[in-house]
Every structure is written in structure tokens, then in C-alpha cells.
């Protein structure tokens, strides 16, 4: 492209400078989710319902992180009480619409984000224009009650919009994702075990290992042979003496380790130390998690023309495992650091990477074939996407969520809740779950939350909401119910939104939102209850 004048040169400089500022600004988070994750955030469209402390905090974190665009929805005006718990609203906003007021300060925090506001209540929008929600990637619903949430959930599912429910109530909190299915390729587990295939070397690896001699008289070479090669060689030796089998009993494993140690020629040979320490990788190669096994067995893996790319990839993976893989998943290709000459290590690394690449090609062939069979464009899934999938295949996650309506109507919720806790106590978190339901029922009946009026009404309300909680416990088959102290505390809270609790709940909500939008890491699979009294959390899978 010709640059005819200095003008476009300036523009280029400006663009380059802006790009540099952007990567500098987001540096600390790019190191976590990468450019592709950041890109997903920047493409996302988020709707926040209710701009109290909880909602403001959730949105603040997303805006700082560079979310694409946000729309804040709130039907209220800024009151005095907002100034005591909401950083994004100040005295000059008093009497003005909350959503509009919050949007202004939020914009200051990141001018790259498009911020819009709707001065109407979420309930009225649900009523008059449910189609409004269709445009969003994600709706974050804060401080809403069960009755409206059920309707919102149905609307979001209709338009395939993700829903995240977050509530803070005095010193307690509640977070719950609701959507049909969320598939994660890059779950990035905290501990990854490297897949060295010491128990099943492929031909090229075996050939490569033949170049090495553990009996070599060159002491420098001897102490720089990578431990994986040492183990592979000792495996060969063991197999030749044990009819092709690998060590299986405790005694044999101990003998194997001694055999490895015996190859040492000098005291300072760290590579042999590493080999002994890593010997168990021979008989305990990384196993498949139950989550991944369940994905392979999932009904969705029987693909049809409407299947998502994810399930097509799973179907291809299954075919690979059954044929070229011989029961194994595609090789990841990464190897841990090993005490070794650079050259040996690099060559070993290339050997693993080549095998990984060849597994990708095999999976790719299955992908193309499946797509063709389904009458879809065989090239619609790129090799890069297939490679990404293969590299992460051992860590796939699929999350499905029951609808809110279903959960509320479930008779067995009580039994499911009780499974979680073997003990009774004042602050047992399942009781908090029950109290959230109970206060909403109280509000339906009395038009306010318990304890929301003068201090003197706390005792009276406690008796009423306690009775509701007891009845509810009976309905869902929960023995034991809620302790008197907890019921009382819920009334003491008066349905108030405490800034710190809103910040925790909003913080967790924003983090879940990031995971959902970037499709990295694993979102919370259930209902999260935050107990700020005991400073604990529990996740209930209901």
C-alpha cells in the first residue's frame, strides 16, 4: 500500500501508539488470558440489571478489563442510601436516574468501553420488551427476586443469551449461572501433568532413544542424558527381562527404581536423580478425568448437522481414540524441563512435537470426514482450531445448568442440599440458600423484606420468615431447617446491600462473566453461597 502523504504516516503512528498503550494497559491480564481472550472480552456485549453496590462493582471490574460494551438498566433514582454503599454514585447524582449516573463515572475508568444506560426497571423491560435482551452475550442480574428471575431465565434461554444471577443480602451472597450448555476447551487446570508416554513410546521415539547409550564412557554425555530417555531405556531393559511387561507390583516398582539408580556413574548426576524421582510416570501415566470421560460418552457426541463445532471435534476425538490413538488421546507435545544438554533436549522436544502434530493431522482427517458426512463444509473448522482442541483435549469441560424454574420447583432440592454438610451449625450455608428463598416469599406476601422497617419489627418479622423457612424446608424435604440465630440475622440485615459484601459478590460475578465470555478456565457449576459471617463459600450443585 503506497503512502502518498505524511498524513497516513501520522495515522499509522497514532494507531501504533494506541496499540502499544492498549497492550501496556492490559499487560497484567493479557498474561492470564492472552490476546484471544482479550479479543473475546472486547467483542462481548453485557447487560447489567440494577445498579446498586453489587451491580456497580461487577460492572466496574468488567469495564476496567476492557469489555466491549455494557448497558446498565435500572428504574430507580439515586437516593441518600446509595451514597453510603456505592462508589459509582455521588452527591451530585442525587435524584437522578441511577443507571445514567453510574454510566458517567464508569466511562472515566476505561474510554475504550461503549457504555449505555436504560432508565427503566428490569421487570418492566421483561414485561414490555423481552426481545431487548436478545442482543447481549451475557446478562448480569443483580438484586432481583426469584419470581422475576424465573421469567428472565426463560427469556435468556429463548434467545441463547447467558445469564448470571448475583445477589448480596446483608452478610450473605448468592451467585448462579444459568444457561443450557457451556463448553470449555481451555480450562487451564492449575496442575497439569505432562504426558510423556513412557509406557507406550511410539516408533519414532523408540528410534530416537536408540541413539543414546547409558553405558557411555563419556562422563559429560552420561550426566546430560534427559531423564525421559533414561526411563525409556530402562523400560526396554525391564521389558526384555519380564516378557514385555512393565513393573506392576510394589516390589517390582521398587526394583525398577533401583535399576534406574544403578545406571548412575557419579554422585553429581542430577539427570539420574530426576529419573528416579519420575519413575512412577512409567506405571502411572496421566489418567483421564471423569469429566472428560463423561464428555466422550455424552449424547451430544452423536453429532448431526446442527451440532456445534465443539461436539464435532469431540466426535472426531472419539474416532481418533478408537483408531490411530489406540486408546490414547492426541499427544499434547509439551515436556517438562530436564537436566540435559541443550541439543538433546531440543531434539527430544521436537520428537514429542512431531508426534503431537501427526496426531492433530489424524484428528483433522476425522473432522473433515465427519463434516462432509453431515453435509457441512469440510473446511469450516480450521487446522489451528483442531490443533488448539487437541492440545487441550485432556482438560475439556462441559457445563449444563438446570433452569431456575426447574430448580425452584424441585422437590429433591432438600436432599441434594443436605448431602453437602455432615454437621449442623449456626452458619451452615445450605440454610442461607433456604433463607434466600424464604425472604423472597416473605417479600411476595408483605411487599418488603423482613426487618426492612424499624428496628422494633425485627423480632416480629423473624417469627414470620422463620415460619416461611420451616414450611419451605418441609416442601423440599430438608430436615433440620434453619437455626433461630440465622433467621434472626437475616431479619437484622433488613434486606440491605453492604458495600463490602456487594464488592465480593460483584467481584465473583465479574470473574464468572470473564470465564464465560473468554471460554477459558471453568465457570462455577452450581449455586454459590457466600457467607460473610464465617467467611466461607459453598457451591451447591442442584
Amino acid at each position, binding site marked *: 500500500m503506497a503512502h502518498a502523504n505524511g498524513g497516513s504516516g501520522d495515522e499509522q503512528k497514532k494507531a501504533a501508539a494506541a496499540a502499544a*498503550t492498549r497492550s501496556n*494497559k492490559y*499487560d*497484567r*491480564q*493479557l*498474561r*492470564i488470558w492472552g490476546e484471544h481472550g482479550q479479543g473475546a472480552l472486547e467483542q462481548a456485549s453485557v447487560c447489567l440489571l440494577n445498579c446498586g453496590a453489587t451491580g456497580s*462493582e461487577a460492572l*466496574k*471490574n468488567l469495564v*476496567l*478489563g*476492557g469489555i466491549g460494551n455494557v448497558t446498565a438498566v435500572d428504574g430507580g433514582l439515586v*437516593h*441518600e*442510601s446509595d*451514597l*453510603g*454503599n456505592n*462508589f459509582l454514585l*455521588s452527591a451530585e447524582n442525587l435524584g437522578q436516574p441511577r443507571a445514567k449516573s453510574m454510566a458517567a463515572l464508569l466511562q472515566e475508568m476505561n474510554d475504550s468501553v461503549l457504555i449505555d444506560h436504560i432508565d427503566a426497571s428490569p421487570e418492566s423491560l421483561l414485561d414490555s420488551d423481552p426481545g431487548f435482551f436478545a442482543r447481549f452475550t451475557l446478562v448480569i442480574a443483580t438484586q432481583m427476586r426469584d419470581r422475576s428471575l424465573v421469567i428472565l431465565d426463560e427469556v435468556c434461554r429463548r434467545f441463547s443469551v447467558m445469564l448470571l444471577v448475583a445477589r448480596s443480602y446483608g*452478610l450473605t451472597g448468592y451467585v448462579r449461572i444459568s444457561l443450557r450448555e457451556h463448553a470449555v476447551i481451555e480450562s487451564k*487446570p*492449575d496442575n497439569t501433568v505432562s504426558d510423556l508416554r513412557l509406557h507406550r513410546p511410539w516408533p519414532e521415539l523408540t528410534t530416537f532413544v536408540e541413539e543414546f547409550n547409558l553405558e557411555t564412557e563419556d562422563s559429560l554425555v552420561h550426566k*546430560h542424558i534427559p531423564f525421559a530417555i533414561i526411563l525409556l531405556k530402562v523400560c526396554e531393559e525391564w521389558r526384555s527381562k519380564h516378557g514385555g511387561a512393565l513393573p506392576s507390583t510394589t516390589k517390582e516398582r521398587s526394583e525398577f527404581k533401583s535399576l534406574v539408580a544403578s545406571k548412575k556413574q557419579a554422585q553429581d548426576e542430577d539427570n539420574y536423580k530426576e529419573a528416579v524421582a519420575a519413575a512412577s510416570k512409567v506405571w502411572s501415566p496421566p489418567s483421564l478425568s471423569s469429566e472428560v470421560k463423561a464428555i466422550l460418552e455424552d449424547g451430544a457426541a452423536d453429532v448431526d448437522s446442527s451440532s456445534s463445532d465443539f461436539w464435532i471435534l469431540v466426535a472426531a476425538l472419539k474416532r481418533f481414540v478408537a483408531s490411530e490413538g489406540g486408546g490414547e488421546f492426541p499427544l499434547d507435545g509439551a515436556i517438562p524441563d530436564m*537436566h*540435559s*544438554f*541443550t541439543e538433546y533436549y*531440543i531434539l527430544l522436544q521436537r520428537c514429542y512435537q512431531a508426534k503431537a502434530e501427526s496426531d492433530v493431522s489424524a484428528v483433522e482427517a476425522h473432522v473433515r470426514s465427519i463434516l462432509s458426512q453431515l453435509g457441512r463444509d469440510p473446511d469450516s473448522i480450521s487446522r489451528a482450531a483442531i490443533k488448539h482442541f487437541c492440545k487441550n483435549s485432556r482438560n475439556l469441560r462441559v457445563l449444563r445448568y438446570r433452569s431456575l424454574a426447574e430448580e425452584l420447583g424441585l422437590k429433591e432440592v432438600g436432599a441434594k442440599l443436605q448431602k453437602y454438610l455432615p454437621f449442623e451449625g449456626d452458619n451452615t450455608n445450605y440454610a442461607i440458600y433456604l433463607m434466600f428463598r424464604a425472604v423472597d416469599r416473605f417479600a411476595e406476601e408483605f411487599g418488603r423484606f423482613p*426487618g426492612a422497617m424499624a*428496628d422494633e419489627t425485627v423480632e416480629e418479622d423473624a417469627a414470620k420468615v422463620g415460619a416461611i423457612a420451616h414450611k419451605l424446608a418441609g416442601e423440599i424435604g430438608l430436615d433440620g431447617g434453619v437455626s433461630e*440465630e440465622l433467621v434472626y*440475622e437475616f431479619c*437484622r*440485615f*433488613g434486606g*440491605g446491600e453492604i*458495600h*463490602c459484601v456487594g*464488592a*465480593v459478590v460483584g*467481584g*465473583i460475578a*465479574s*470473574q*464468572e462473566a*470473564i470465564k464465560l465470555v473468554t471460554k477459558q*478456565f*471453568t465457570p462455577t*457449576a*452450581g449455586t*454459590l453461597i457466600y457467607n*460473610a459471617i*464465617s*467467611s*466461607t*463459600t459453598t*457451591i451447591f450443585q442442584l
Partner: protein
Amino acid sequence: MEARWRDIDFLLQRPGKLVSDGFEPGPELREFLRDFKILVIGAGGLGCEMLKDLALSGFGNIDVIDMDTIDVSNLNRQFLFRMHDVGKPKAQVAAEKIMQRIKGVTVTPHYGRIEDKDIEFYREFQLIVLGLDSLEARSYINSIACSFLEYNEDGELDMSTIKPMVDGGTEGFKGHARVILPGFTPCFHCTLWLFPPQVTYPLCTLAETPRSPAHCIEYVHLIQWGQDREGESFNPDNPEHMTWMYEQALKRAEQFNISGVTYSLTQGVVKNIIPAIASTNAIVSAICSLEALKLATMCSKGLDNYMMYSGTQGVYTHTVSYEKDSSCMVCSPGVPVEVDGSITLQEFIDMLLLDARFKDKLSKPSVSFQGTNLYMQAPPVLEEMTRPNLQSSLLSLMGSKGVLNVNDRKLAGVLRVQVAFRNVATPMAV
């Protein structure tokens, strides 16, 4: 009732059933909070959030200390700062912004290092909240806070000398919040094992057999810089220095056929960059600030005493009550030291210097006993006055049992030493 504080007043003005001992609900409690002297250490990712959280919990008298200035890479989470603030001191801008948005709170900034403040500065505060990112800084404040503890002869703690601390830390999606009541719960030193050791590479790997991009970078950082740019102090914030580091690391990697050296990785390795996001900082700071509120007002049960948080795979938290180390060098009534009954003060001091437990922590120790100076290394007048004590037997100076307070330039706080004498006849009333 002030409408502004309606929601928090539900907690502060109403009696409760799940509260701490000594909770006295009422309007005076909020006034008490307004004047409560609290110190926030750090005005960065955690500090900004903590200032907001504390102010919106009713704390009206907050000090904040931070030695850094604002950088562009702070802006993804340190929400009090804007692009035009880059270069300005964090503490000052943070204080200004909080006071602008939240009426009635006083935030006093201190732009400087925590080590440059006198110990008396810290004594003034009723509670210290830590938003730090280093072990060393935490260790330092911990020593200061623990030095305020006063134990009697029987090793019983004077509870009024406890300086409570709330400490938060984050890294990516993970973090922790803990309450430290020195002398009561474990102090930072009691649980040093909670922090994993730093990653270091063997020298021979860096010099002869590098295998990863990090090896190449660390070689240039730790070895090549000193050789090629002798005398020049490496400044990671100098773009020319960092670019040189990156280019040299890339060259080295190419020599060894190692791929993966990028500018970003170079920065990360050399500056030991910890990935950080707004959400985790917000969560951990709020948990810490809530605990500060509970400590100050007793309005609910307190965190006992350590909560870890992880948001990568769902949300996982674990709350555990750790126990303090009864012979902790920093917070216990005294580290046990056994000596011979005939030992002189000089010999005792020499012994301390050789004790492996105090390695690198002592250089010229001064010793006192229940407020009386036994030997002071400085000032010269005091040194001369106390010098004769060096030749006296320790037993005659302090009696048959007790705790000596050892002070030293190298110590941030005080080292309490519980002396036990052997080869001593049945002690007589002194």
C-alpha cells in the same frame, strides 16, 4: 439516623445473634468508626479497593502509604487512577480521589517507603490493613506490629498491646485474606511456610545448557548484563535496558535453537511480574475490609483466621484456623535459649551472634530486661554507662528466669529471648 448509612446501620445499630463478644450496637458505633485510626499499606491493586471499601464501611480517618508512582500497566485494576495520572505518587492520587467521591472521609497520604517511617508512626494506629505484593514488606510490618506486644514474667500477653492486622494478597485468579492478632493468632512469621519459594535456576543450566526461553533470559539478566554493561545498574523500567535484555536473550536462544523468547516474557521473568486483574483484587480487598470492620466494631463473627480463594476452576475457598508457633522468633513471649549459670553478659551476646536461628538477623545486639538497659550498643554515652555490665554474670543481672529484649539495627522489631539457666542452685528469692 443518617439516611446515607442506612444499610450498614442495620448491622451497626441492631443487636445480633451471630456477633462477637463486646458488640454494643448504637449510633455511637458509627461515630467511633469515623474517628478510628486505620492504616492502609499500599495504594495499588489491593490498596485502591481497600480505601474504597473502608470508606464505604464508615471508617472516616484513613492513612495510606505507598512508595510507587502510577504506571500505565496499573490502569486495568487500580481504578482510582487515570491515564493523565501516570507518573504521580499513588498514595496522593488515591487519597484525593477517595475524598472527592466519598464525603466526610479523611484520607492522609504518605508517599514513601514503609521502612522510612518511625516505629512510633505505626503505634498510633488501631488497625493496620495490608495490600502488599512482597514477602519482605509483609515481614517488616509484621515485625513492627509484633514488637508492640508486652508479655509479663509468666509469659502472659497484655491484650491491650495487640496491634491487629488484616493482610490480603492476590495473584491472577487466586488470593488470600487473613486476620493477624499478634500473640494470639499466628503472625506472618509463624506461617512463613505458606509462601512457596521463588523459582531459581542452577547456574550451570543458565551458563551451559539452557533449554527454555526463561533460561536464556535469566542468563542475560544475571550474568551477561554484568559482563557487557559493567558498572551499570539494571533498571527494569528503562525501555532501553529492557530492550537490550530482550534482544540479547533472543540472540542466545537462537544460538541454542530455543524458541519462545518474547519481549513480554522477558519483562515477566526479569521483573517477576505477577499477573493481576480487577476482580480478584476487589474480592480479596473487600473480604479484608469487612474483617477490619468486624474487628473494629464486633458487629459479626470474625474470620478465624486464614481464607484462601481460587477462581480458576469454579470458585473454591478454604477457611482454616492456623495455630501460632509458640516459639516464634517474632511474636512469641520468648525464643528459648539455654545457658550455663555462670555465663557473663558478653558471653551471652557472643552466643546469640553464633546461634543459627538468628543468623543474618543480628549484628550489634543491645539487651534489656524489663525496661532496664543491660547493654546498649548506642549512643556512645549509654554504651559507656552499660559497658561494665558485660563482665557481670547474666544471672546476677536478670535473676533466675525471665525474658530479655534484644534490639538490633538489623531487626525491624524486637527479639524476645526466654533464658533458661542450667547448673544453678535452687533459686532464692531475689
